[in-house]
């Protein structure tokens, strides 16, 4: 006598296995959805913009005439902006990470700073724009110049650098520090000569990722007040400026008036995506090549 009726089992299993296979297909299609959108997005941007990219487009100044308009000002503006953001965010981010990981006693103050940083990471970028507008552009009376925008951006991406640096510093094994102390080095000497060099690849990766976030960020700078058509190019950190994403923004909203502006926006997006792709590749390369496993 059989205790298990196998025909019944098969009957029941059949529908369950069918549901499983159906679900698997569904989950796979959902995963593909994001990738298909990515492909369409990149295809659209290339189709609209690639034909408009040439030497003149890169080196011309802005113009209302789509045939003559170029993004030289936006490229220079982006470079100047990064020249402010990179050192400021690196000093602040790495300093905070060293303090939290090496000096701060595990207590209220350090957990308060940590909570604060994770909440800061969740503040919408447009609110940072308001902070920049109120404090840097108006209260310090800098105006909407590179320095004001750069300081705002540096604060915006600070959490990225802090978290990445903290992880990199934490990954330095304790025995390296102990060896350094054993040789008679002081705490700061140990940090300066042992911990920082060992965690540098991780820190640099974090800084580059933070910069690539800053390069693509639009809202805070629009809020600080970047003019739609800025023809002079910036020569320093106290000049008015525009950057690639802001230029994309103005060309996109004006494309309802002049259809070619959509092509200019697409062409600028291509340039922006190339820059971002290059930066991310460098970050991944640094991480893979120089990161030591202890």
């Amino acid at each position: 006598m059989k205790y298990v009726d196998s025909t019944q089992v098969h009957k029941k299993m059949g529908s369950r296995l069918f549901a499983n296979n159906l679900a698997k297909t569904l989950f796979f299609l959902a995963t593909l959805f994001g990738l298909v959108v990515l492909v369409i997005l990149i295809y659209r941007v290339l189709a609209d913009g690639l034909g408009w990219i040439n030497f003149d487009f890169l080196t011309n100044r802005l113009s209302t005439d789509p045939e003559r308009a170029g993004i030289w000002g936006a490229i220079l503006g982006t470079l100047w902006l990064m020249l402010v953001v990179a050192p400021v965010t690196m000093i602040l981010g790495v300093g905070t990470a060293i303090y939290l990981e090496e000096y701060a006693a595990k207590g209220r103050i350090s957990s308060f700073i940590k909570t604060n940083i994770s909440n800061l990471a969740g503040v919408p970028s447009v609110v940072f724009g308001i902070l920049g507008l109120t404090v840097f552009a108006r209260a310090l009376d800098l105006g909407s110049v590179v320095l004001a925008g750069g300081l705002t951006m540096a604060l915006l991406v600070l959490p990225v650098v802090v978290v990445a640096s903290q992880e990199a510093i934490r990954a330095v094994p304790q025995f390296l520090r102990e060896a350094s102390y054993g040789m008679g080095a002081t705490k700061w000497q140990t940090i300066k000569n042992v911990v920082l060099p060992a965690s540098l690849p991780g820190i640099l990766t974090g800084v580059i990722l933070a910069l690539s976030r800053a390069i693509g960020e639009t809202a805070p700078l629009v809020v600080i007040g970047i003019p739609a058509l800025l023809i002079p190019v910036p020569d320093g950190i106290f000049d008015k400026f525009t950057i690639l994403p802001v230029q994309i923004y103005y060309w996109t909203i004006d494309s309802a008036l002049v259809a070619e502006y959509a092509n200019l926006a697409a062409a600028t997006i291509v340039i922006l995506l190339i820059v971002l792709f290059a930066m991310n590749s460098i970050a991944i390369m640094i991480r893979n090549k120089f990161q030591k496993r202890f």
Partner: protein
Amino acid sequence: MKGVLHLAKSAVHGNNKKLNVREIIQEKKKSRSVNNVTEKLIPKILFGIAAISVLTTIGIVLTLLTETIAFFKDVPFIDFFTGTKLKPLGENAVFGVVPLLTGTIISSAIAMLVAIPIGLMTAIFLSEYASEKLRRMLKPLLEILAGIPTIVYGFFAFTFVTPILRSIIPGLEPTNILSPGIVMGIMIIPMVASLSEDAMSSVPNAMREGALALGATKLEVTWKVVVPAAISGIIASFVLGISRAIGETMIVTIASGSSKNFTFDVTQSMQTMTAYIVEVTGGEAAAGTTLYYSLYAVAMTLFVFTLIMNLIAQYISRRFREEY
């Protein structure tokens, strides 16, 4: 070290400087005291640097708060939060934030209708079904999707998604809340997917194997064991996604226009809180006017909204985390 070496040298070579032991000790002490000063100074400097992040938060709260208080002197608190009419320009300006709130909530709701199911299914596929090789190929591609600047999504919504939707839905306006909502959802998919996947991957294999041994199919294991075990992380990822959608600026600014009508019709143009901030600052509102202060009141509302969402997410993932 140097001192000792010097001593040894002078002993051997008969020395030109004639340092005696006492002088060497003095010299050593001096350099040590310099070291001591740095050792004491560095932590203080670093603390000062770490405090800047706290100062940033204080700065944000203070600037928002002072100007918001000034705003509520002009416009009563109740009128602002219950007013369904927003007409910030011209004479008889009316400041009711409800149209902006509905715009924000509706666009975020559309975004989450896209991001939650697709993001969760992606996470399930990556964590439960995909082979290691496939996962290693798919994850970086999703990271690319996450790394695309929001302005690019805005361009995509305005020049691609809206025209397609308009050919499907007649009567859809050139600027509407539906298209940016959907694109915002697509933007949030990678975030929901990767956070949920992290939560599901940390469910121990023993639990899966136990269920499989009882005869459950993979779908049943996923749905009845893995997802319930990882639910805190999954819900936290949804809440963070909502917070991201509320704070998202450029997509809605570009693709949803600046109509301030109070409506629930998704085919119409609606303005979100973020888009309002961009519009008002872009117009260079003169400091001291009610229009200028309204900027801060709206920003304060936005800040409180996202802060609450982030705190909820932190609370859920801390409070309901199951440790295995």
